[in-house]
């Protein structure tokens, strides 16, 4: 691991309590962070991890408790003050500015200036250096918004790392990264810890925890479950701490019986869009899960958007049930019983201020049309059913969805599409930011769904996850389909091979612009 942590805590959180209105979100939480250690903060979706972080860094005020940094009480009222005190944070939602250049985003507030004039060139040079440290080689003068979430997330991390703070807080930084970028990031974290930085690390990937962390603090329903040394804590034990119950081991292997009829629902030929993806062929069958694998920026999202009709293809044709159809808008997709859970939850998924109920019935309502409003009773019924089915927490259908934790928002979005009883369901990074428990549930769900005869098209950066449920894996590289693996041929190594095949540069231009 990293440098041996010295005993005196650098950051000391004691008895921290927080409630939003009537809802108590945090109860007397303690957390000790020592200089030079990497400390994992774990818990289910909605456990209160992000809230804890926001209370410490001055986004929220806290109701009770003390925070001491280097033995001094601190009570930052804004992230600005927190930063000044030495707490650099990457919050769960990528919080950078899509309209500013990458360089500006990296150095906003710390731009090098002479006589008040920002030294653009110098800034870009330093920025390029910094990003290369993360294996990212992109044009820093282009607006950040033109790069994929993954790229944006790396920039956010780089920004925080560069802040020269004493404590670095990372809230699910790896959620949208692929294995390669995760490796790079973990490497950087080790280095920093080696330099004596204290790092608080929130994630749902236990492997990553065991790979870098020294200690683990676990929250459940806003309560401290305990702090353990990583080495002394077996995985099963950890999961029990998080869920408060055992996680029944997920059996791997295909869901549906091999003999099941492979009746074809969707058939796509030569579908493509300039600047997004090269023309590709794709078949989708009843009760089949097709996995889309590839590096970041390989064009997976673009691919599925074309299939759904979110973007207009400029080439190729689509057939549903062997009848040619026009999929040029989401409404077309909806009409032909397709569903699509987008990757970018915040900007393309939820309508933050609407309630969970309204968000769930939205697509169904759109399908029924303006003049056939869903009666309130039916809405409540639907909402309650899916809240139960997906165990969305808190189980309050009338809460603005914006107030839910990231993972629970994701579940609500899944519910939105399941409510429309689609025949083809497209999931772009469905398990991103989902806790171990829910993760297992969603995978089970995917299985059940295809057992019920759905055709699923799943984009995921987690290969071992794809392997567990995919009947077929389509691999993309640089916006081109490079391989399609069937049945027994599917394995993490074979996918990796297909991705890497022949060119190691694939990762270099990850997220390189369209």
């Amino acid at each position, binding site marked *: 691991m990293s440098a041996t942590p010295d005993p005196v805590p650098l950051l000391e959180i004691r008895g921290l309590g927080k409630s939003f209105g009537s809802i108590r979100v945090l109860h007397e939480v303690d957390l000790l962070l020592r200089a030079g250690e990497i400390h994992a903060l774990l818990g289910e979706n909605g456990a209160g991890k992000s809230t804890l972080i926001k209370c410490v860094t001055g*986004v929220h005020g806290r109701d009770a408790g003390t925070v001491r940094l280097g033995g001094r009480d601190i009570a930052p009222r*804004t*992230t*600005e003050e*927190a*930063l000044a005190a030495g707490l650099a*944070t990457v*919050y769960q939602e990528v*919080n*950078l*500015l*899509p*309209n*500013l250049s990458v360089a*500006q985003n990296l150095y*906003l*507030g710390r*731009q090098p*200036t002479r006589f*008040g*004039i*920002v030294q653009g060139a110098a800034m870009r040079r330093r920025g390029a250096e910094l990003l290369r440290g993360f294996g990212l080689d992109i044009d820093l003068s*282009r*607006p*950040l*918004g*033109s*790069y*994929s979430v993954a790229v944006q997330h790396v920039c956010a991390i780089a*920004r925080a790392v560069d802040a020269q703070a004493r404590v670095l807080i990372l809230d699910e930084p790896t959620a949208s990264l692929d294995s390669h970028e995760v490796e790079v990031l973990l490497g950087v974290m080790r280095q920093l810890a080696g330099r004596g930085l204290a790092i608080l690390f929130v994630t749902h990937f236990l492997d990553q925890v065991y790979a870098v962390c020294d200690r683990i603090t676990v929250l459940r329903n806003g309560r401290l479950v305990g702090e353990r040394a990583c080495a002394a804590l077996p995985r099963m034990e950890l999961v029990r701490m998080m869920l408060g119950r055992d996680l029944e081991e997920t059996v791997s292997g295909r869901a549906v019986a091999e003999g099941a009829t492979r009746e074809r629902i969707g058939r796509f030929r030569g579908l493509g869009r300039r600047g997004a993806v090269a023309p590709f062929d794709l078949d989708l069958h009843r009760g089949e899960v097709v996995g889309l694998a590839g590096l970041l920026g390989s064009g997976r999202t673009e691919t599925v*958007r074309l299939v759904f009709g*979110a*973007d207009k293809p400029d080439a190729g044709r689509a057939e549903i049930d062997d009848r040619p159809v026009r999929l040029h808008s989401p409404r077309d997709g909806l009409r032909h019983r397709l569903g699509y859970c987008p990757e*970018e939850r*915040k*900007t393309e998924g939820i309508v933050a201020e609407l309630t969970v109920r309204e968000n769930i019935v939205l697509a169904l309502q759109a399908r029924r049309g303006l003049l056939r409003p869903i009666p309130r009773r039916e809405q409540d019924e639907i909402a309650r059913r899916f809240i139960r089915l997906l165990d969305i927490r808190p189980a309050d259908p009338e809460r603005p969805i914006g107030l839910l934790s990231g993972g629970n928002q994701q579940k609500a979005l899944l519910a939105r599409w399941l409510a429309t009883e689609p025949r083809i369901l497209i999931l772009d990074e469905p398990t991103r930011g989902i806790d171990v428990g829910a993760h297992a549930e969603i995978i089970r769900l995917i299985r059940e769904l295809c057992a019920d005869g759905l055709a699923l098209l799943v984009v995921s950066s987690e290969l071992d996850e794809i392997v567990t449920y995919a009947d077929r894996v389509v691999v993309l590289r640089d916006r081109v389909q490079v391989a399609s693996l069937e049945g027994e041929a599917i394995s993490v190594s074979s996918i990796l091979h297909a991705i890497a095949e022949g060119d190691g540069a694939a990762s270099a231009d990850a997220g390189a612009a369209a």
Partner: protein
Amino acid sequence: MNSRLPVIVTTIVFLLGFAGCGLHFPHFASTRVVGNLLTDNAYLGVMAVGMTFVIISGGIDLSVGAVLGFTTVFLAIAIGRLGIPPLLAFVLVLLLAGAFGAAMGALIQFLEMPPFIVTLAGMFLARGASFLLSTQSIPVGAPLYDTLNAFALHLPGGGRLTFITLLMLAVFAGGIVLLHFTRFGSYVYALGGSRASTALMGIPVARTTIRIYALSGLLAGLSGIVFSLYTSSGYSLSGVGNELDAIAAVVIGGTLLSGGVGTLFGTFVGVLIEGLIQTYITFDGTLSSWWAKIVTGALLFAFIAFQRLMSGGGFRRSRAGAAAA
């Protein structure tokens, strides 16, 4: 590059428009007309600079026209009636206008009230205040005014670059430096991109917001000074509706009202385009007052539509969430 395109297009559109008028009317393509175009829109230009800052930061300021009116009356009374030395009066009024803007910024920031409404109330207040000062129009007889107005760089062909023209150009230059080359400028864009994110990045949101509106108020005051030089008088009704002209100029210049995107040069061209439309109308002169309005609208539409089409109006997918209007 995505943010450059509209400006380039707008500029082209303006040049085409000017060329068109030049061919259409004999006396049009002259330095004199160009000089007039700048002089007559100097006050609007100054006002539009402030408006650009506000709009890029995702806000809006409806009070500027009224502040202009107030300033002219204030100056007329201070200089014309109370005999306060002009320069001192200028300083006073600028301080007043700046403070007024800052106050509105504070309301917007700390009470989370929508800028549109706060500044609308500000508009009523400023206009009302100028009524209270005086409902008559008051001449300003100050030697300084005459000397400043007399001063002008003469262009070949009867054109003149007057003092207020140069002042406007200076304001634009200063604004460009401030907006495009300083930290403050980048904060302005940041706020327009996303207030929430900006705050989470540890940028002083409150201070920046207040400064932006203070700046807008200040420049509105300055445009009031320009206007009072322009007419050497003060009148409580001057500047009615100018806020809309300024907003239109800014937006025609390719700035997004949703904030985060835009340039000052674009605004400059926007001001010229508005001026050009008016000059066209007066040069034509055969239009009845209602046809004049209709044609103004039509030209406005023509410019904007043409602009949209040239910069590819189609439904493009952009991941720049905030920028996606």
